């Protein structure tokens, strides 16, 4: 068969479908919806994945978060005094305490509610913070309980309407005490352990404990291991050190909890992948049902057109021409369904974007959905096409 001949056969198929335009549309509806589903699901999955990545982007996989357990946390002996012994562990690169609590943050003009985070100067490096102006506090501030503060980006915007070095030197009231603003952080996004960076005010640990949070602050600290390989060993050592310094005997209940951030990130990612897979299989099932729809309607078409097939055969159409013509019909239905489905998917994509949904278009969802759609269409189109091709011309001609 020459390509010109094939093209004309394609034309024949197109004409037959056009003759029954509404039915053709209904037939391809399943394919359309399936295609749309797959493309949207992939985009949603990618959005969720990026969202998780962003949430944990400030966390290194070598990070271990140490905090009080959810129950019985009040009795926890976890405190800044744990930092020096922890630092003696050979595989610990950093240990940064964080004392957090929500307080009123106010200037002369505005009052809002934000987290105050008391921490060590290393925080800036460990959390990979950048400033738009000013500087982070240093060890001297820590040692002298200086009342200085670094504003997170969102805090600066809410208080002053701008995120600008101009506010440096202004005074801000944290709880009841006035602090001097010495730095403003750039947008960072995401969280660092219990801290949402953009929505926090950072002060030296000692100042936050003494002047703002006191015993009401929630204490936790971040430990970074020197490498991923030593992470399990580091966690064991950490447990050992903390048990000793908290005087917990063998069999005693630990008053602290270790969280391996690498594992947390991995499990969050895998649960988002599971979700995407689940939704993806829904798309696949829709396509499958769509394919069965194509098969059904094509069987009806073949029996309706038995006479026509008989005539075509009588005047010289070979089996393979009939087969090809009907396969082309399945192909066109599939192609049109795919195309319309993809256009609808793009429409839905922009609609969801406008609702600020976390959704990210992924180019390979198009070829992926095409391959699946095409396979399903051809698979289910083949049986009826084969039936049409193998009709006996004598019986088919006699059919009324």
């Amino acid at each position, binding site marked *: 068969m020459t390509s010109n001949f094939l093209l004309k056969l394609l034309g024949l198929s197109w004409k037959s479908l056009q003759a029954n335009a509404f039915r053709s549309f209904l037939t391809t509806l399943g394919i359309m919806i399936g295609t749309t589903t797959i493309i949207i699901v992939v985009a949603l999955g990618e959005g969720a994945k990026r969202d998780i990545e962003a949430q944990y982007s400030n966390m290194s996989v070598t990070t271990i978060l140490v905090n009080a357990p959810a129950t019985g946390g009040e009795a926890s002996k976890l405190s800044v005094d744990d930092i020096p012994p922890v630092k003696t562990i050979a595989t610990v690169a950093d240990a940064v305490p964080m004392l957090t609590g929500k307080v009123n943050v106010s200037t002369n003009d505005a009052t809002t509610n934000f987290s105050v985070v008391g921490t060590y100067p290393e925080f800036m490096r460990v959390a990979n913070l950048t400033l738009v102006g000013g500087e982070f506090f240093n060890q001297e501030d820590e040692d002298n309980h200086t009342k200085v503060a670094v504003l997170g980006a969102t805090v600066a915007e809410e208080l002053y309407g701008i995120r600008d070095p101009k506010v440096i030197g202004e005074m801000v009231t944290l709880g009841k005490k006035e602090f001097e603003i010495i730095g403003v952080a750039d947008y960072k996004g995401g969280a660092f352990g219990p801290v949402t960076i953009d929505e926090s005010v950072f002060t030296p640990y000692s100042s936050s404990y003494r002047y703002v949070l006191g015993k009401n602050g929630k204490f936790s600290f971040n430990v970074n291991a020197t490498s991923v390989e030593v992470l399990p060993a580091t966690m064991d050592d950490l447990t050992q050190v903390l048990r000793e310094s908290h005087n917990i005997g063998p069999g005693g209940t630990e008053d602290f909890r270790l969280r391996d951030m690498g594992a947390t990130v991995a499990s969050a990612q895998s649960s988002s992948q599971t979700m995407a897979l689940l939704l993806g299989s829904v798309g696949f099932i829709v396509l499958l049902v769509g394919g069965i729809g194509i098969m059904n309607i094509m069987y009806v078409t073949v029996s309706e057109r038995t006479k026509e097939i008989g005539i075509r055969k009588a005047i010289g159409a070979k089996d393979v021409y009939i087969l090809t013509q009907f396969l082309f019909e399945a192909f066109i239905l599939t192609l049109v369904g795919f195309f319309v489905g993809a256009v609808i998917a793009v429409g839905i994509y922009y609609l969801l974007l406008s609702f600020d949904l976390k959704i990210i278009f992924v180019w390979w969802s198009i070829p992926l959905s095409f391959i699946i759609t095409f396979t399903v269409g051809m698979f289910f189109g083949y049986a009826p096409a084969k039936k049409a091709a193998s009709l006996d011309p*004598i019986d088919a001609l006699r059919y009324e």
Partner: protein
Amino acid sequence: MATLIISLEKITKSYYIKEEEFPVLKGINFDIKKGEFVALMGPSGSGKSTLLNIIGALDKPTGGNYHIQSKLVSDLSSDELADIRNRYIGFIFQNFNLIPTISALENVALPSFYAGALDYDRAKELLTMVGLADRLNNRPNELSGGQRQRVSIARSLINSPEFILADEPTGNLDSKTGKEIMDLILSLKKKYGKTILMVTHDPHLAQITDRIIYLKDGKITDKKSI
């Protein structure tokens, strides 16, 4: 001696129902020469349709040899038979057998499409010849019975077949239209020297042919026994 177009030698056809043999054709022998117009007559149950299907390359005989010109048709595969039907045989059916969803022109051109040489110009010429130059784009349901049979005659000619197989071509037409169609078929022989085999019930129609072959109980017989 004129070329033989159709040659049947000891053609038999049997149907088997639960391994029991029901012979329908019991050794058919006849030839049709180039340019002949032959009528095939026979009562219902004589095996006429079965013979017609074999001559039309729609069916294979159980035994015997069937040649179109020098080509042995009785042994061919179904695809090869499709090719024979396409190039060697022009069909005219009692109920026209046009495809309802396409125009007269497309119906006429269709065999040339399956031959791999779609020829709308020739289809147009043939429709003009049968008097339907102004009906090219009408669908079959927009045409009268006589016009439909003219379309089907034009279609039978498109691939310049070796012979035309007409199965009761006037069976579904009133007598006036039937006569017009018969005149047209006759003109195919007279003007274009076409070889024609026509199946008919009508002895008057059969009279205008060169020769009549009678079939009874699966055998060729002489006229008197009908």
